[in-house]
């Protein structure tokens, strides 16, 4: 176990739980092995690792895009490792929000429509989502005047905040952020971290935050070091 903080056993269903998770593209090459991890609702995990350490693969596994070769993976109690590809897509739409490094938005859609995409795929009620999306965006510092403009008109910092609003709109169990601050300067980065974690807390959302930036560790209760995890790593 490489999880630094002790795991407290609670009777309630963990937001995410994985056991003996193993993944590889070819049996004789690089592989990823996670002996165990358990996150409760509202916990924030910092995943640290240089490029090539398997961060992306882990995110693909957690978000249901890739399927583990062996082991078990539960999101909100649902066995992701057993679900079909189409069911995993549905699960991702409803329970997982993703924020990328940058270029999170579809440039030709408005800010509001970009936000509403997640609710659309999660099959949420349109009018209800719209009201919630406006509220979320406003709280994230994107006033109504900005909400109708094209996503491409926003600054990078604003775009990343829209990405958070989109990720949180369908009230996901899990928010996955893949180096969302790498394109931001220090001031913007700190503002972004505070706003993201505050909104995640307000929504009771578990956060998995991936970065190579050690200085961001201060925002998190727990951390996972990819370098120590990957077994039989071959540099790629």
């Amino acid at each position, binding site marked *: 176990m490489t999880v630094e903080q002790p795991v407290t056993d609670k009777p309630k269903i963990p937001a995410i739980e994985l056991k003996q998770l193993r993944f590889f593209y070819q049996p004789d090459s690089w592989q990823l092995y996670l002996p165990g991890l358990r996150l409760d609702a509202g916990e924030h995990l910092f995943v640290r690792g240089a490029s090539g350490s398997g961060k*992306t693969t882990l*995110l*693909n596994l957690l*978000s249901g*895009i*890739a399927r583990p070769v062996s082991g078990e993976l539960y999101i909100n109690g649902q066995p992701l490792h057993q679900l079909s*590809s*189409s069911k995993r*897509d*549905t699960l*991702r*739409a*409803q329970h997982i929000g*993703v924020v*990328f*490094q*940058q*270029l*999170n*938005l*579809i*440039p*030709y*859609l408005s800010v509001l*429509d970009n936000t*509403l*995409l*997640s609710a*659309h*795929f*999660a099959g949420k009620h349109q009018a209800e989502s719209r009201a919630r999306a406006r509220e979320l965006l406003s709280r994230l510092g994107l006033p109504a005047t900005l909400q109708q403009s094209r996503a491409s008109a926003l600054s990078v910092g604003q775009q990343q905040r829209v990405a958070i609003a*989109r990720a949180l709109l369908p009230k996901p169990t899990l928010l996955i952020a*893949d180096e969302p601050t790498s394109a931001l300067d220090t001031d913007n980065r700190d503002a972004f971290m505070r706003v993201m974690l505050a909104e995640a807390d307000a929504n009771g959302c578990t956060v998995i935050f991936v970065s190579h930036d050690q200085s961001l560790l201060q925002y998190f209760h727990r951390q996972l070091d990819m370098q120590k995890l990957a077994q039989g790593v071959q540099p790629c």
Partner: protein
Amino acid sequence: MLMKLARLSLWNRRGTVLMTWLSLTISIALLLGIDHLRTEAKNSFTSTVSGTDLIVGARSGQLNLLLYSVFRIGNATANISWDSYQRLTKHPQVSWSIPVSLGDSHRGYRVMGTSTAYFEHYRYANAQPLTLAQGQQFNGVFETVLGAEVAAKLGYQLGEQIVLSHGVGAVSFSQHKDKPFTVVGILAPTGTPVDQTVHVSLEAIEAIHLDWQQGAPMPGRQLSAGQALAQDLTPKSITAAMVGLKSRMATFTVQRQINEFKAEPLTAILPGVALAELWQMLSMVENLLLLISLLVLLAALVGMVTTLLASMKERQREMAILRATGAHPWYLFVLIQLEVLLITLLSMLTAALLLSGSLLLLQDSLAANYGLFIGLNIIKLTTLYWAAGILLLAMLLAVIPAVSAYRKALADGLTVRL
């Protein structure tokens, strides 16, 4: 939302989409246009003569007879004697007949000798009769009624005098100068060879040839117009005759009787059948045109698919975002198909507008220059078949970029970065 994505994504790539749309519009308009023209041309062609049950001429092939009697193309091999014609008109089944006497011309336009039965019984298109735009039918021997195009092209007015030429060449060295004709009537346009014909009476044809023998003026024998009128002007022969029967049922019987006429070798044809046979010969060209336009359409569709495939690279990010927010790969497949559907539908709409517009502009000149009456209504059953076929083909070809999007979505996962 799917619709909005497709619409806005297309708008976002409007540069390339515009070119695709343009090439599709042109090729669809071409295809529909050629299909429309061939149907309409066939209608126009086969409606050159209507209401006539039989065309009778000297023994020859049916196409030859049709071409010279109706289309004024080529020449008769022999004439029908006046006696035979008289016997034909007295046949109990014959209701009316129009004699046709050809062989002279006026500045490239054929001269046709006929009787006033022509104005009464000749029908074209959907049984439309001839109408006079100006003036009246010919009464006197040296009077003529002009087809619409003859009058328009040569700028003739009522009362003008014209001189007929011997033979059918555009430039003739032997003119019937001594017997000029007065224009007494001008026919309304019909869109048939009638427009290109100079009509005179049978007696006039006889009168101008009184002092001629074997295609040349007889030396030492000159008759003035006045002297000619004093002669017996009963024609000795005619070129052909159009016949209307009392009962359609009798058509084949009468045709056989004429073909077996003992006194003179004659041929009777059914104009509808002969026209259809003639059109058959032209249909190879028509099919070739259609094939070419189909290939042009295919090229445009392949162009569209190429553009879409090329754009998949720059849209990788867009696809990854959709995928990360929860889109199933099928969603991306449908999105691409929807985009193709939108472009194709839009192109079909503009193609229809383009085609209608050009037809509206060209209709008059087509009718005037080629004798083709092209209707403006391009929406008919075959158009709908074509539209459905084009859509189907487009969707089928769109499977290529759509599958590419689908597979990329599965393979790339969330890893797309710059």
